């Protein structure tokens, strides 16, 4: 049996609103994934380090302060060449999406995003299904 998918959920920057990040951590754990949560006030460099050290398949960032462009730039630059996809959640205006994609952010999930959509996106992007909790 393949190992379960591993996901880093990170709160880069100074924003302390962690309800959404913690909800997503629980969603992914319930979907059978292994989730590492950075906790608050992680520097972009610390996020990159954790992603590499924890050998995660996908990096999920949660940013509600509006500083997503500069923060994603630093995380994406740090992860370049590692093959780890970056996905963003939080308060993100539509007009910033193009800029985020240019930086390398592959998907943006906003408030109210269906849980299944997030889970399926991660499974699809990582190229495989994680074992369902019932099979463990």
């Amino acid at each position, binding site marked *: 049996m393949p190992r379960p998918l591993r996901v880093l959920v990170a709160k880069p*920057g*100074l*924003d*302390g*609103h*962690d*309800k959404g990040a*913690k*909800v997503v*951590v*629980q*969603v992914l754990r319930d979907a059978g994934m292994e989730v590492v*949560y950075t*906790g*608050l*006030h992680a*520097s972009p460099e610390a996020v990159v380090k954790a992603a590499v050290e924890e050998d995660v398949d996908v990096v999920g960032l949660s940013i509600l*302060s*509006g*500083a997503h*462009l*500069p*923060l994603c730039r630093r995380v994406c630059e740090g992860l370049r060449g590692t093959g780890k996809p970056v996905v963003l959640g939080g*308060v993100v*205006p*539509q*007009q910033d999406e193009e800029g985020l994609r240019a930086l390398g952010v592959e998907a943006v999930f*906003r*408030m*109210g995003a*269906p*849980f299944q959509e997030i889970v399926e996106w991660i499974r699809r992007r990582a190229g495989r299904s994680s074992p369902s909790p019932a099979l463990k």
Partner: protein
Amino acid sequence: MDPSQGRKVVTESGIEIKPVYTAADVAGLDPGRPGEFPFTRGIHPEMYRKQPWTMRQYAGFGTPEQTNERFRALIAHGQNALNVAFDLPTQLGLDSDDPRAEGEVGRVGMAVDTLDDMERAFEGIPLGKVSTALTINAPALVLLAMHLAAAEAQGVPAADVRGTLQNDILKEFIGRGAWIYPAAPSVRLVADSIEYCAKSAPRYNAVSVCGYHLRESGATPAEEMALAFGIARTYIEAATARGVAVDEVAGKITFNLNVFGNLWEQVAKFRAGRKRWAAIVRAYGAKEAKSAQLRMLAGGGGGGLTIEEPENNIVRGAYYALAAALGGAQTMALCCYDEAYSIPTEKASLLSLRTMQILAEEVGLCDTADPLGGSYFVEALTAEMEKRILEAEGELRALGGMVRAIEEGTIQRKLARQAYESEKRLRSGEAPKIGVNRHVVEGAPAPAMATHPYDPSWAEKKVKELKSLRARRSSDAVGAAVDAVKRAAAGTENLVPPILAAVKARATVGEICGALKEVFGEFREPRF
């Protein structure tokens, strides 16, 4: 179809609502009179008839000059108090030129580095008249000192400054997350501020205990009150341990509570909360009736607003304001309809102010005190809510009290689980939300929203000013003042006087908070 038909109606706090209430439901219940202990019906005898609630929209962004402009605009539109938003670097005790502040300077609030910034932010705003709330927590003493010093520069003595410091660090560990130091020294800072205000700034509320953010983080309305009381008890005990009389301490504590959710449950929460707080304060030995009054800001909560069909949030805000008024709030602020997109635009902020003004001045919410008093339903629900609050207080005691629950992470995990459950109910449609899971227009395009702009040149300006100030000021005087703060932190003396001296010497937020961090260390977040 009547969705309530054939099923139970149960509030978020777990109270089952009957289809009809009668005199039998209120037998033996006497809510008393407004303005009389235990203040279930309100803290003043005539409530809004004598003075409508204070309108205090949260505002601040970019540089102090830009924020000053927004403040003046709000005052010109009839707002009678201010609520200052600080940017994240300021909230975390970092200067604008700190590498960790990159991209965040002036973004979610005003950037403040030194006393000069506070003086500019309040230019032309009389600090003895316009009551000003500072939404600041970990570095609260520094901003309190800057507020008092800026007032002094206007010729207003500390004794006349009208202010409210949010200064509720314990809730930051549970929700909102703007903490720096570990819990114990953080509580000591709160006690210092209470002692200082009790002695030297009698019109300044040292603390605004925030049930608001606990609710946003997953607490039920009953838990919101119970956990807020658990936090307030911690501050009362810390301040009385410093020798401040309980009547003086209670007079320095206000509350910031949330209003999203079922309207009746919020009203009952405010009424029952007042009654419960009166009993708590009296049990600490307070003698004056005024000490037992729960004074509150009610905030139309962001947790109820949606990204879908954002204009619906204007309507939601109006109902939240209605609940706050029916619940007897002293001060009101509403989240704006565009806040799921960015910090509010000026237009959205003004619309929230107008919403409150329409309620207060057009439709009669100020006509009589506690208009729902005596309603079979509301009185019965208030009594039920009091029981639920008491139960939740017991649950917190079982976790070992607020500080232990925070340090061990038990309370954070409990609320995170509840937040997850409520997000599931929203997605399943069990919790109705118009435009989200009811009456959804399939295939409707995402609305084009004008969002609050951000210009990186504001941060550049701020950093340039800070560098020039560092070159101008006396570094010997700053060094000595910051050392004095450090010595006081290592001892037990009140930290406000040395911090006041440091801000007057033009020490920065980052320098003072950095000195405290050297002594106190940093909070370590429990694992999640």
